[in-house]
């Protein structure tokens, strides 16, 4: 697996430097990226973060709308507690800060620690964890589930709520409801390699696929089948997973994990759209592209979020960050 880089240890900082050079709407402060404009006084701040290697997550969603700041760790490693503190402070506009990030051990310990430490600054914080990956735990153990691509819906929806002037408790409740209404399933075709590692993280045979991944080996291994078969199984599993408040209106994200090209995403989206239509569901504002990746990994994920009237409105609200514009 060839990578264009200078050294594994410089990768994250050089990537951040390039990113802010290309996007003047963002500011870098060490391992924190914040909006150049800062958080509007009185607006609830939203902060996220996690390991590097998932661009455009998280940084690409910092901007007018979704996130106010994010804390970045090394590749696939959570942000340090220092970065979390710095990001919470950067996102603070005086009305409290929602920590909205994926449910991973390292990230949680560090954001929690950071929350305790900024208490001293009298910044009120709340937490909502992304837990959309249905492959990572059974439905009755859903608090153990990890957050994957579906979290961008929570970013967008909570961000629009905060923009509209809601208070911290309301923004937090809206984010939690968005997470609760969202499910994701992933599929790997080929692995990625941690910069500095001697070989790819896992191996897959020439005719093998894995379900339920995110830079790691998958939960079920299977044979590569026609795209429609694969889409059928993924959608079936998504629909079978219980959701408390279902809706007839959903949004769908067909997301490349990295190397899988748009051509294949659209072939899969075509099938997903047909299947959901057959179920009587209406797709609103579908997203197809590279939204949450694991470097050069091949594969894709499908996320579905049930939309009540408010979530649909918030999803449609204007936003402008480097990788999402409405």
């Amino acid at each position, binding site marked *: 697996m060839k990578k264009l880089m200078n050294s*594994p*240890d410089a990768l994250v900082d050089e990537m951040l430097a390039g990113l802010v050079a290309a996007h003047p709407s963002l500011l870098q402060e060490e391992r924190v990226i914040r909006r150049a404009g800062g958080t509007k006084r009185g607006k609830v701040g939203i902060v996220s973060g996690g*390991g590097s290697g998932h661009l455009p997550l998280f940084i690409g969603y910092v901007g007018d709308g979704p996130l106010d700041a994010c*804390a970045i*760790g*090394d*590749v*696939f*490693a*959570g*942000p*340090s*507690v*220092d*970065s*979390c503190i710095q990001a919470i402070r950067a996102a603070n506009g005086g009305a409290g800060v929602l920590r909205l990030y994926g449910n*991973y*051990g*390292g*990230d949680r*310990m*560090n954001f929690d*620690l950071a929350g305790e430490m900024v208490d001293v600054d009298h910044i009120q914080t709340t937490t909502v964890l992304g837990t959309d990956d249905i*492959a*990572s*735990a059974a439905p009755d153990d859903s608090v*153990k589930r*990890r957050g994957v691509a579906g979290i961008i819906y929570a970013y967008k929806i909570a961000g629009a709520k905060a923009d509209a002037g809601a208070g911290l408790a309301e923004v937090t409740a809206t984010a939690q409801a968005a997470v609760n209404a969202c499910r994701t399933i992933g599929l790997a075709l080929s692995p990625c390699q*941690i*910069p*500095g*590692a*001697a*070989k*790819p*993280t*896992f191996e897959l045979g020439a005719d093998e696929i894995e379900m*339920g991944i*995110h*830079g*790691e*080996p998958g*939960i079920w291994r299977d044979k590569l089948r026609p795209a429609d078969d694969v889409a059928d199984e993924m959608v079936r599993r998504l629909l079978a997973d219980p959701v408390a408040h279902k809706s007839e209106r959903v949004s769908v994200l067909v997301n490349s994990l990295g190397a899988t090209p748009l051509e294949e995403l659209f072939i899969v989206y075509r099938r997903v759209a047909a299947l959901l239509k057959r179920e009587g569901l209406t797709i609103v504002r579908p997203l197809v592209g590279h939204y949450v990746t694991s470097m050069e990994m091949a594969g894709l994920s499908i996320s579905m979020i049930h939309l009540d009237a408010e979530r649909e409105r918030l999803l449609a609200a204007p936003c402008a960050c480097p990788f999402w514009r409405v």
Partner: protein
Amino acid sequence: MAITANEERHAARAREAATLAQDELNTADGKMGDGDTGVMLRRLFGAVAAAIPDQETDLGSVFQACAKACASGTGSSLGTLVTVAMMTLAKATKGRSQIGWDELGPLLALVRDQMMARGGAKLGDKTVVDMIDAVANALVDVRTRKEASEAARKAVIETLDAFRDRPNRLGRARMFGERTVGLDDPGMLAFSRLLVAVAA
């Protein structure tokens, strides 16, 4: 005999051990996680070794410097637990220039408890915490470097063996359930490699 703040040597050994074990630990983590344990530890102990203050005799200050380097250097699960360990040791050894070999076991037990409080692991989940628990117990009655070193070596081997055929119950590895049976937990493996190197 006692352990003093002449810790550069230990830190340098830990750094070398982490570098040597990098690929092995990545591979172990690649089987039930995201394959980064080795890269992370190599980087972390590089930062720790660089952070140790020259000429400092206060053990608490030494560990405090290590904790700071960790806190700004990583946020991975294991890395954060190393930060917790360093903070715990810093607090426990503050103002002291040496600790006796017989204090090592209780100190590690303290570290174990703090890690459990922060990370939520229980004993038996097959994490680094189980390894620290085993070593803490093994060191309870030791009086000399030699005794400590031997007891620790024995404990890590036995503990790896004892847990290998049990499933992981926490973190990313939890998802793989029965597929982790027969595999070493990367965090337990990492602690064992570091300990053996530092104890050498």
